[in-house]
């Protein structure tokens, strides 16, 4: 007996397709159908109940098959479940491949719609999250369990930033879940190639849906990714999940809602679009985990949704919604991109709300000093536009600002360890290479990077100095005292 007949006999209910409206199907019958319940069509296709009324049931189709009017539909009595396990690592999965009705012992099944944990299961964010991108780690620090929106125009290196942070986190042992929502196949293939090339496949799970997939499947993609993240969180592992991107997700949900005849609101989005995204992002955070024998631990889901904006318009509907439900945003500035800044993150229009609380006092002080200096530097640059004659001190400040901006220049896929970023900034702040111009400084910094990466002893000593410095001034003093040694070491590097 096939699955369809089994379900017919189990639930004792049947429906017939009455009307088809692209990815939404209206069917009569199924008197006991519940919201979000999975239904199976006679030809083996799968759908999910989207809404019910007195006479008809609205179903979102989750597969590409051909369904015609009159096709039989059976209830399953189950909400959508997916198979999760360590077999997912390194593979690119479509949500469709993971949907299951069967229970096995080896692989766990999870319902993709779960209630976000309450305040009793949450914990303050107290561990810093390293992205490997110097400007973020130093000026806009993030914490494990933070929800940080990545926002910017299209083609402004947002995905590059995500790749960099995934690489950094995967190398540190964090489980990374990448949800590609309606992405081009080539993009997903390139991502997978990147994962394989960097040997981090054992830490990455990719959930991908493509533009030619049914809208229902695209709509499910981020929920599937979050469910996987929750599975590994419950196993006590830190998880980093990215949604690339939620504006596309919102567009597909708008399509579904309009086809279902829902009343359109602002920009034709349905009224529940905020709820749709907020209930997803609310599932991320830092959590208390109950371990074996009553032991409690801590595990986090750090979430970075991406939002695409149009011509730098911050006031878009979905963009502002997402800003309202995250703990800050990183703004990828089109102007910075055009000026050649990489990564083009605008630190003055970016926000991090909880990341600073996870920093050590030293880093907090460093971050504060750096931010305040950069603000003064930007003001001074604007002042210069009036053609003002500058004092020697101001000129020094501008040069230092240019040099510090140079520290933040970072090639696409080259994560920079936290301690190296601190080392670079402190050496420049301490007055190393004062006689050099910005280009000369960049060359020295490249040498410093090589030294740090290749010389283990130097790396360990530097990390010790950073770790044991009680304050930023102390750290700068330590750097000043070891200036000659470091310069000598750098001179040996060609």
């Amino acid at each position, binding site marked *: *007996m096939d699955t369809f*007949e089994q379900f*017919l*006999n189990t*639930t*004792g*209910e*049947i*429906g017939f397709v009455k009307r088809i409206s692209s990815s939404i199907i209206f069917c*009569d*019958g*199924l*008197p*006991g159908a519940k919201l979000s319940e999975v239904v199976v069509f006679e030809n083996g296709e799968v759908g999910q109940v989207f809404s019910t009324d007195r006479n008809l049931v609205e179903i979102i189709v989750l597969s590409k098959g051909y369904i015609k009017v009159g096709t039989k539909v*059976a209830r399953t009595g189950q909400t959508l479940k997916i198979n999760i396990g360590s077999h997912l690592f390194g593979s690119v999965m479509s949500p469709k491949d993971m949907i299951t009705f069967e229970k096995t012992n080896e692989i766990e099944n999870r319902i993709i719609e779960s209630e976000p944990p309450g305040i009793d299961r949450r914990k303050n964010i107290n561990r810093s999250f390293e992205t490997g991108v110097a400007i973020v780690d130093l000026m806009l620090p993030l914490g494990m369990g933070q929800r940080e929106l990545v926002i910017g125009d299209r083609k402004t290196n947002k995905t590059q930033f995500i790749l960099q942070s995934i690489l950094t986190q995967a190398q540190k042992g964090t489980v990374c879940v990448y949800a590609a929502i309606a992405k081009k196949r080539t993009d997903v293939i390139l991502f997978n190639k990147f994962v394989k090339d960097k040997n981090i496949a054992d830490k990455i799970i990719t959930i991908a849906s493509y533009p030619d997939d049914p809208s229902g499947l695209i709509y499910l993609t981020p929920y599937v990714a979050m469910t996987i993240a929750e599975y590994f969180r419950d196993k006590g592992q830190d998880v980093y999940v990215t949604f690339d991107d939620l504006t596309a997700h919102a567009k597909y949900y708008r399509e579904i809602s309009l086809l279902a005849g829902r009343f359109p609101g602002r920009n034709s989005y349905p009224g529940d679009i905020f709820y749709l995204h907020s209930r997803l992002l609310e599932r991320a955070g830092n959590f208390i985990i109950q371990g074996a024998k009553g032991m409690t631990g801590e595990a986090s889901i750090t979430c970075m949704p991406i939002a695409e904006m149009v011509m730098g318009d911050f006031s878009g509907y979905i963009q502002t919604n997402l800003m309202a439900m995250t703990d800050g945003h990183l703004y990828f500035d089109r102007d910075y991109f055009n000026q050649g800044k990489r990564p083009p993150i605008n630190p003055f229009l970016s926000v991090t709300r909880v990341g600073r609380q996870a920093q050590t006092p030293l880093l907090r002080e460093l971050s504060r000093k750096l931010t305040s200096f950069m603000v003064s530097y930007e003001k001074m640059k604007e002042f210069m536009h009036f053609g003002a004659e500058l004092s020697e001190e101001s000129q020094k400040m501008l040069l230092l600002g240019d040099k510090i901006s140079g520290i933040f220049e970072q090639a696409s896929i080259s994560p920079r360890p936290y301690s190296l970023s601190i080392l670079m900034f402190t050496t420049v702040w301490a007055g190393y290479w004062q006689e050099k111009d910005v280009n000369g400084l960049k060359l020295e910094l490249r040498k410093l990077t090589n030294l740090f990466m290749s010389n283990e002893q130097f790396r360990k000593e530097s990390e010790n100095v950073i770790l044991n410095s009680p304050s930023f001034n102390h750290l700068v003093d330590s750097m000043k005292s070891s200036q000659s040694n470091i310069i000598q070491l750098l001179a040996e590097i060609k």
Partner: protein
Amino acid sequence: MVSQLLTKLRTKDDLDILRGELYLLENSLYQTTNKYDNTIRNDIRNWVSDILLQESKDIDISKYIKDLKNDLQEIPVLTASMNFEPSSSFVETVSTWIKGNVDERIVIDILLNTSTLGGVQLSYRGKYLDLSLRKRISAELENVTLTGINKPGINVGT
């Protein structure tokens, strides 16, 4: 009040034919004067036209047809899948019993499905009941196989 026409319908085919007749009649109302009379005399089955003329005697005919069409939308259909094509007397017997015991308006939609082997699969207002021989045999076969494998001393495949 339920029209006599509705109580006389037996199968879904009857229902579809009646719908077609009402469509013809409705169209003829808005054509030449004699068109309606011609249609009801020549294009409609006798028993249908008799009831129509009788029930629409003192009322607006267009409203009567419209109401009737609306009532036809609401007619409950019992779908029955069987592995043989039933005779009209068989259908008559079943329909009479159903109309007498369930709902006088109900019509039967008979589908030929040889894979049921015997018995019937019924669906009505979203409820489904499989009384087919196929289901019984499948269940029996499952039991037989499992019992055979679980029995000690039996080597499967030898």
